[in-house]
């Protein structure tokens, strides 16, 4: 109902604005603490996702809710941003690149999830999805806050809201369900990856350095 309207607006805002204004709260806290909070948020979301995914996969029905379900990755699913990365490449990411990858991924995942929300059948699922989207929204803002406080520009959003996966093959119910399955899988993997990304950031961003940078920019 009303909450859906707000979320749609927020999604549009996120998807279309080039950059979010720097948030005051994170500047006050300092990047060190924001990174910790972002890390905590990814853990919370990972926990929430476990329940959400279970419910959603049951809604999709077999074989999607079977624990051994291990389908091949179809080319169409590549639209969902993948957390998979070469080990040395991942290690060598700059702080900016690391944060930006997370920011971009969750922004897009959020949009896809919202499309899902629109199409879902049961009220219980809609409620769970809405709650999850709100938390995921918080994560995106939190990452944005860390980037701003470190002086990094926010990545530009997609030019237009991404076409919801499954739109071309709306007639094929099974393919649509496969897209949903992969979306949830990628989301889960991203949350696991983010915990590791933010662990690395925690170690590499001492609060003292951040204060200097903020002072230099006259905040």
């Amino acid at each position, binding site marked *: 109902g009303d909450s859906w309207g707000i979320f749609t607006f927020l999604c549009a805002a996120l998807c279309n604005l080039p950059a979010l204004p720097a948030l005051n709260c994170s500047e006050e806290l300092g990047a060190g603490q924001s990174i910790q909070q972002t890390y905590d948020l990814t853990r919370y979301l990972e926990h929430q996702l476990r329940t959400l995914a279970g419910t959603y996969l049951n809604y999709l029905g077999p074989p999607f809710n079977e624990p*051994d379900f291990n389908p*091949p*990755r179809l080319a169409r699913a590549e639209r969902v941003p*993948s957390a*998979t*990365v070469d*080990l040395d490449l*991942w290690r060598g990411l700059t702080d900016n690149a690391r944060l930006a990858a997370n920011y971009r991924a969750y922004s897009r995942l959020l949009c896809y999830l919202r499309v899902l929300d629109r199409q879902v059948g049961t009220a219980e699922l809609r409620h769970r999805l809405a709650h999850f989207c709100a938390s995921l929204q918080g994560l995106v803002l939190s990452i944005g806050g860390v980037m701003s406080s470190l002086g990094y520009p926010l990545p530009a959003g997609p030019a237009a809201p991404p076409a919801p996966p499954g739109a071309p093959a709306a007639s094929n119910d099974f393919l649509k369900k496969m897209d949903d399955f992969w979306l949830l899988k990628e989301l889960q993997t991203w949350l*696991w*990856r983010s915990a590791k990304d933010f662990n690395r950031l925690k170690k590499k961003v001492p609060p003292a350095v951040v204060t200097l940078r903020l002072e230099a920019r006259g905040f």
Partner: protein
Amino acid sequence: DSHIQYERVGADVTMKCGSMDWDAAVTWTVNGTDINDSRLNGSYLVLKNVDLLQSGQYSCYEGSSWHLKYQTYLRVGTPPKEPVLMCRSNNYPKGFYCSWHLPTPTYIPNTFNISVIHGTKDMVCEKDAVPKNRCHIRYLQLFSTVKYKVTLTVTNVLGKNFTTLTFDEFAIVKPDPPESVVAKPVPNNPRRLEVSWQNPSSWPDPESFPLKFFLRYRPLILDQWQHVELSDGTSHTITDAYAGKEYIIQVAAKDNDIGTWSDWSVAVHATPWTEEPKHLTTEAQITETTSASTSSFMAPPTTKICDKGAVVGSGAVAVCWTAGLVVAAYSVLFI
């Protein structure tokens, strides 16, 4: 000429004496011992329902000349049962290893073949020299959404069997237990124990992949463990130890975010610091003072014990040991 023959437990085995005719006169031996004629069907040796004990070297000699006409080594065994396979990543994010074994022996040689598929890609699991029945794989990519499928096939002459494991990269992460666990008493603190340990050496990157720890401790005399979970640091001070009791302490490790807890570390024992008992002279003098006024605990007065030094208030230096010990023992019981 000699060869090896493999047969299943419970099978019926018929051995021919090489090219000898059925009605030729022959003698069979097993491991050098003659086999009596009841097992023979002409010149054929018939073993019904063979068991493991019948494995051995069977030889056939021509009746009169004792020429060796045929020799075989019979090995009785079973086809393999479904093997037990385990895969684990104790060195995340480097890779993982798989190890396997048979639940019951086959008593004949087996070959193991392992295949690892990641999505559509075949991966090579490099066999370890030691221990046997183990191989390892290096991750090429991290944070994969595609599962790994490991299939182990075991084959021998009598049959084959296999088992498959399918898992996500994150699901098999289990570090080795923490190393060098040390527990020490804290001077002047009768209820404290200082415990310290190190990250398992197999964990390659504790900086980017930090471990968290679980400590458990109990006095030897109790069965109930106490637990502490520690999200960072490799030391902890126990502050609620029972004074003077010996403790057993163990630590386990887990990646901060993924996988499962390690096995418990090697147990260490420690007893909290206790106060040194005071010098015996002072003790005896004080207790002699008190026992002089309470008649019940007087040591039986015998001339062979003290003739001097036991006098109250005398400040005598020479203390009679026997009397002193007896009185000290009584007084310790009542402190």
